[in-house]
């Protein structure tokens, strides 16, 4: 338990270390999610139109 507390406090630097890692995680998730969402929408859109055409 105390070792977990020690880990989270980062020797007193926790208030700087964890926001840095949290922000990195957010940026990475956005970088993965946005292209995938855009791609899925475009694919669905093109599929719909191809289905309607013939």
């Amino acid at each position, binding site marked *: 338990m105390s070792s977990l507390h020690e880990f989270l406090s980062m020797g007193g630097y926790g208030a700087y270390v964890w*926001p840095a890692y949290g922000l*990195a995680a957010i*940026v990475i998730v956005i970088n993965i999610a946005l292209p995938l969402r855009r791609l899925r929408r*475009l694919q669905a859109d093109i599929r719909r139109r191809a289905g309607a055409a013939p």
Partner: protein
Amino acid sequence: MDKYRWAWFHRFGSPPYVYRIAGLWAPWFAWVAGLSMVAGLYGGLWASPPDYQQGDGFRIIYVHVPSAYLSMMCYGVVAAASAIGLIWRMKIAHTVAVAAAPLGASFTFLALITGSLWGRPMWGTYWVWDARLTSELILLFLYLGFIALSRAYEDSRSGDRAGAVLALVGVVNLPIIHYSVVWWSSLHQGSTKFFGNDAEIQTSMLVPLLLMIFGFTFLFAACLAKRVQGELLERERHSAWAAEAVR
């Protein structure tokens, strides 16, 4: 024979080929990225000892250095793709540049913020207008300018060309960022020597750092592949190959 020597190069000018290859490669890039980053995080946050001067505060290095490195590496990709697009009038190269720029902007933003979170406890300030920090901020504005300019035209070819010229002019900023800590006095530390007998970083800290740099690079490659796919579909949504590719 000569006719076939450049066949591989021409294939990369073909949207359906690049769309397919990017879709095939992306998951492999993502796996390499995920595994190296998990190993790097374990080594960086847990297994490596605290720094003798900065205690545990130095651990910001494992996100700061990879994102700062990527911010510049990605600009190199944008500029090289822009040059290829301008010289050989290769539409796909412009597509790659446009797809890469938002990723570069995001990693530049991350490098600036993590650097400022590192600067506060170590330097006593979140921000100083010194050469390294200012030139990295200019890099962010170059990305944003490129993104805005390449979308500013009705005709995507005009936007591609205008953005590409801006990207090439901005290349002058890369050596300025790199050498800023040598040319001007700066709060930011100089380059650290990674390898050799006079290496300035311990192996237990170096290995996780290299794993994180490696992981971030493959993450960038995976995201870029998916972005290129999206950009290609967007631009060629009315083509026969696009309808074929999404079936």
